């Protein structure tokens, strides 16, 4: 390793972690914002701690990260702010935790959303990953707890998963620090716009839905030109999601945007 050429060091994966500077709570002005989403109990907070050097206590039950926790790290001369969202099973139903997570992904405009999923509960956890992918292209899926999966006799096909989801997939055992370097690399590449993605978007095969969505999306654009992810909001309105409807009706949706832009 001592006499390796500088160029190969830069591309070497281990280099990512060695160059990682954990900034803890020193948030300041960040170049990129990273959101950390995932089901409860997938080791999200462990990953957060590994990246920021903070010691956020991790608990074993839903709702442990009640508000969102923030930290920072620096890599390759860029400063990243990382936001640990509450653990949720979906972005659809109506709990406060889910609303916090959903609002941030929608309106916080994170540069990268990392979805942490549990390798031993892949099927259930993929629900959330797919829901996130309906909102944003800029996602990295981190399949954590690979060591437990191994103990259960489960192997996960990283490439196949990446191909099916259309975004980078990293297998990790965050508790032992395995996979963190690759995760950092993928986050960096995605944030800098070096990763082509083609996320798995669901097709709406309901007659009339496409047209209705386009109409509402256009109306939203006219009323709230700054609000992102209008198609997703339009879809929720057509489903009759009460929380989203209330936010649009009261004009709060514009404020949500401003709230999250300030952070």
């Amino acid at each position, binding site marked *: 390793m001592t006499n390796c050429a500088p160029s190969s060091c830069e591309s070497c994966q281990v280099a990512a972690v060695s160059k990682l500077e954990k900034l803890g709570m020193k948030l300041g002005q960040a170049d990129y914002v990273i959101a950390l989403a995932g089901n409860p109990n997938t080791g999200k907070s462990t990953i957060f701690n590994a990246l920021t050097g903070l010691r956020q206590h991790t608990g074993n039950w839903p709702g442990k990260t009640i508000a969102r926790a923030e930290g920072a790290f620096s890599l390759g001369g860029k400063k990243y702010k990382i936001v640990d969202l509450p653990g949720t099973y979906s972005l659809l139903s109506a709990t406060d935790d889910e609303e916090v997570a959903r609002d941030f992904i929608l309106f916080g405009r994170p540069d990268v959303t990392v979805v942490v999923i549990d390798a031993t509960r892949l099927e259930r956890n993929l629900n959330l990953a797919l829901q996130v992918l309906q909102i944003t292209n800029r996602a990295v899926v981190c399949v954590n707890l690979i060591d437990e999966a191994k103990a259960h006799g*489960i192997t996960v096909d990283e490439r196949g998963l990446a191909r099916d989801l259309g975004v980078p997939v990293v297998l990790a055992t965050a508790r032992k620090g395995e996979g963190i370097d690759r995760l950092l690399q993928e986050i960096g590449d995605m944030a800098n716009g070096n990763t082509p993605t083609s996320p798995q978007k669901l097709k709406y095969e309901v007659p009339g839905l496409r047209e209705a969505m386009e109409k509402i999306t256009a109306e939203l654009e006219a*009323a709230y030109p700054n609000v992102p992810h209008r198609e997703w909001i339009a879809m929720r309105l057509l489903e009759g999601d009460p929380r989203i409807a209330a936010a649009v009706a009261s004009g709060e949706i514009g404020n949500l945007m401003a709230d999250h832009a300030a952070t």
Partner: protein
Amino acid sequence: MTGEEIIKSAEKLRMGLPPGVRDHWIEDIYAESDRIASRNLDQSGISHRLSWERRLDWFLTNRWTGYPTMVLMLAIVLWLTIAGANVPSGWLATLLLENGHPLLKNFADNTLHLPWWLSGVLVDGLYLTTAWVVSVMLPPMAIFFPLFTLLEDFGYLPRVAFNLDNLFHRVGAHGKQALTMSMGWGCNAAGVVATRVIDSPRERLIAIITNNFALCNGRWPTQILIATVFLGTLASPGLASFVAAGSVLGIALFGVALTFLASWMLSRTVLQGEASTFSLELPPYRPPQILRTLYTSLIDRTLIVLWRAIVFAAPAGIVLWSMANINIGSASIAEWLINGLDPIAWLIGLNGVILVAYIVAIPANEIVIPTILMLTVMVTGISGVGEQGAGVMFDASSESSLAIILRDGGWTTLTAVSLMLFSLCHNPCSTTIYTIWKETKSAKWTALATFLPVVFGIVICGIVALFWRLIA
């Protein structure tokens, strides 16, 4: 176009769509997850964890073995805390009280030449109270919190919640209240904040109002000390620590029973409604990371709670010293209060000293016992016990001398039992009251959460005292 108009337009379009668009979309997501998972997952390896995990889950959540295991775990944690805290607590007392206090007093009087009242307020009031809190609280907390966190990390607490869910459901409360209750065993203020995990406002209020029935860290030392001195000594020396741990366990379980009773009463009266269900995933067991747990529970819990105790104990020490040393007419303020409250206190098996101590200790439950000791010495005028004399909060050099002081102050086994019960059921400390107000933003609910436990305490202690005296 305004937001309202967009909603109307969306509603109209929605009517034109086939029903169940939302369900259709969710079904698609699930089907797709299923497809992707099955394509990229290979389950053919041999599992050597699943079978014992299943067996352990069955054992821990089974109706017949689950509850006894919970009680046993709590008993072990309590016994380890009681048996283990004694020694370091003694070291700290020797360092801070027996040696530190005379040294400081000497320094204040003879080197700095402070006026008597200033050295009294600072050294006898502020320093001594703070030192007492540190030596009594730090060791049990440093054992209790890490043990609790280890159980949490291992994955036991979600199983406890799973077991208790049924009971909480039956009394009209939320299953997650089991978690906020166990947080309350550490600190009620933390327990109240933790109720944020409960989404329904009705069930959240029940959890907040009843959290005080979970013995908090400020009250464990009171329970442990009184149980050791008065109840442990009733048994033979070899069994003393088990009897003491058993009685504290009894009080803690009685608190759990009161939590159910109060939740049931609330959900039948002022907080009526259906209990909501929630899905709790039983996480896989994980080997606890012992060193990390020790570190985080020391930093996150022990030091933060201790700091809070010190912040509140210091000014209370000043108040205490002043009360005992400022006279109105023939007696000090403290004596007036004690004599005034004595008749009421008798009815509930206590005495005036204890009630005054509880009023002074509203900021922090931790200082109840030191306050009681100081006031007892002052009222009974015992001399030669503790070098500092009357009006100073001191550490009784051994537990038996503590018993002697209290017996001289007119204490009986009834007083001890009543104090333990009253310690379980009285108003929350001021931090918790403030936290409740911050969380509920309602004077009404804060008042209810403050006074409901006191009413419980007066009724329970009154009944116990009445029957005790009838039988004895």
